[in-house]
């Protein structure tokens, strides 16, 4: 009897907390559908008195923005997807090579890669800026993609997985005459799908949501990402037009929210598998 009452109490507490947690997002959605007049007047109404799509049509028409919001969306999604594909492909190859193949100097290379997990971004971002600047690659997709691909997190994550992969399957494929590449792509990779999805979702979120690097590495309005474009609109012409700002942030948040909600289970599973417990 006591246990049941406790559970009910815990559900109530969890529900109150969940409501508090979701309020900022609801308030964003709600303001996006209010007129500027109603938004600025304040109040506590989550359902707009005068429901309007005006903020969205204004944003989507590109009015008041430095460039069309679709351009920023494309930049974020494109660099996110290409960066993620590169990361997943090269990290899987490197991790498999280091974990299972006869790579020269691997006793030296693996610790070298992993030790950079300790190196904070602050120490590499200025020289990286100068490198890209000296070859005139600022404001390009290269600058929005390549720096993320050197991260050792994926190599580390996949290395652990490949280390524990049963060797018999590889041996059987080898006896059937498969070469290393065939064994890797036909036997090993299919079994690594879940953990590679985890890495993919993590990588996409990191690139899509990053702020400091795209902020310093791009300055032309066309090459801004959603995250930096929004920040610049907020400090510029949209400073106090919260209805329009909230429509803009809603548009920016929906794609990543969808990716996140679909991939959430994989993400959680991957965190579990990665041995961080």
């Amino acid at each position, binding site marked *: 009897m006591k246990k049941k009452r*406790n559970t009910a109490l815990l559900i109530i507490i*969890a529900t109150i*907390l*969940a409501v508090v*947690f*979701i309020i*900022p997002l609801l*308030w964003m959605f709600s303001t996006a559908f209010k007129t500027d007049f109603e938004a*600025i007047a*304040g109040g*506590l109404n989550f359902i707009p008195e005068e429901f309007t799509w005006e903020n969205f049509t204004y944003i989507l028409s590109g009015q008041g923005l430095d460039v069309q919001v679709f351009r920023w969306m494309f930049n974020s999604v494109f660099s996110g997807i290409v960066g993620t594909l*590169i990361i997943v*492909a090269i990290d899987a*190859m*490197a991790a*498999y*090579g*280091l974990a*299972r*193949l*006869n*790579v*020269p100097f691997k006793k030296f*290379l693996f610790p070298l890669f992993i030790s*950079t997990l*300790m*190196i*904070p971004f*602050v*120490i*590499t*971002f*200025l*020289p*990286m800026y*100068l490198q890209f600047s000296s070859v005139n690659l600022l404001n390009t997709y290269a600058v929005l993609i390549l720096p993320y691909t*050197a991260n050792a997190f994926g190599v580390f994550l996949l290395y652990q997985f490949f280390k524990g992969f049963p060797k018999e399957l590889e041996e059987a494929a080898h006896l059937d005459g498969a070469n*290393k590449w065939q064994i890797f792509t036909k036997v090993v990779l299919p079994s690594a799908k879940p953990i590679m999805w985890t890495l993919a979702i993590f990588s996409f979120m990191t690139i899509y*949501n990053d*702020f*400091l690097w795209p902020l*310093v590495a791009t300055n032309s309005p066309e090459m801004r990402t959603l*995250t*930096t474009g929004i*920040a610049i609109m*907020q400090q510029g012409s949209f400073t106090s037009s*919260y209805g329009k*700002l*909230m429509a803009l*942030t809603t548009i*920016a*948040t929906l794609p*990543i*929210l969808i990716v996140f*909600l679909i991939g959430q289970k994989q993400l*959680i599973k991957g*965190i*579990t598998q990665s041995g*961080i*417990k």
Partner: protein
Amino acid sequence: MASQVISRKNSKKDKFTSFLFVLPYLVLFLGFMFIPLIYGIIISFTDYNLLSSEATFNGFENYARIFDPNSALNSIFFDGLWNTLQFVLYTVPFLVVIGLALALLLNYLPKKITGLYRTIFFIPYAISVSVVSIIFLWMLDTNAGLINNFLMNLGFDSIPWLTKQPFAWVSLAGATVWWTIGFNMIIFINALNEVPEELYEAASIDGAGAWKQLISITLPSIRPAMLFTILMSTIQSFNVYGQPLLMTEGGPGDSTEVLLMGIVNQAFSQREIGTASAMAVLMALIMIIISAVQFKISNKKEKGEA
């Protein structure tokens, strides 16, 4: 071992084809991690300036200026460091304790509904820092903001959340905890699932209450997760940049002007890449030392009790 079976055939060719697997990553690693790292340290010993094409070595002069109390760099670095440390202090304990509390709460809920609540607490983690900052700017607005409107409806005065201390720190810390707590919660949920059920059963038979079980069973069992979340949260909070830039613009005064803001300013507004790099190297060193110390302390504890 499969790799050895293969390698017997032709060791040299085998080594080469194996190396091809690592090559793409190695190239990107050299270009976008290793070379910048070395280059960054080298620049920190020069007077590199974005306005002139030449940079000359000036030894430890940049570092000496940072430690010279009469230099402007001294206050940029140490005030920034102090503000950053305050932010770490105001966020990490909450990120760890509330993260654990949420995980414990979800652990006690009926299995059927856990997933829904876990998703809700985890959702903010998917959002970018500029969206988080703008949502909180809007909620904390002095006149029209949700929170002040709520307070005024209850008969309180409106609070200058972003323009007066200590409210500015409360706002920055609050927004950050809301944004990132979900990740720590997931780590703790995983850790809690790994604690053997028998330990709790044995403790119940011995008559240990919920609190006693938490202290003597749960906490010791999840120590690695605890270490991981403390480490990760500290590193992330040390790197804080977007929230104070967008929410308080470093104010009121320059009380929330964090170290990374000072470094970016020095590099891109003052165009002094050399001194900015020296500050970046020092900041990186401090972060590495803090992580190493945290790691050492918790490792020692673990050994001490084993």
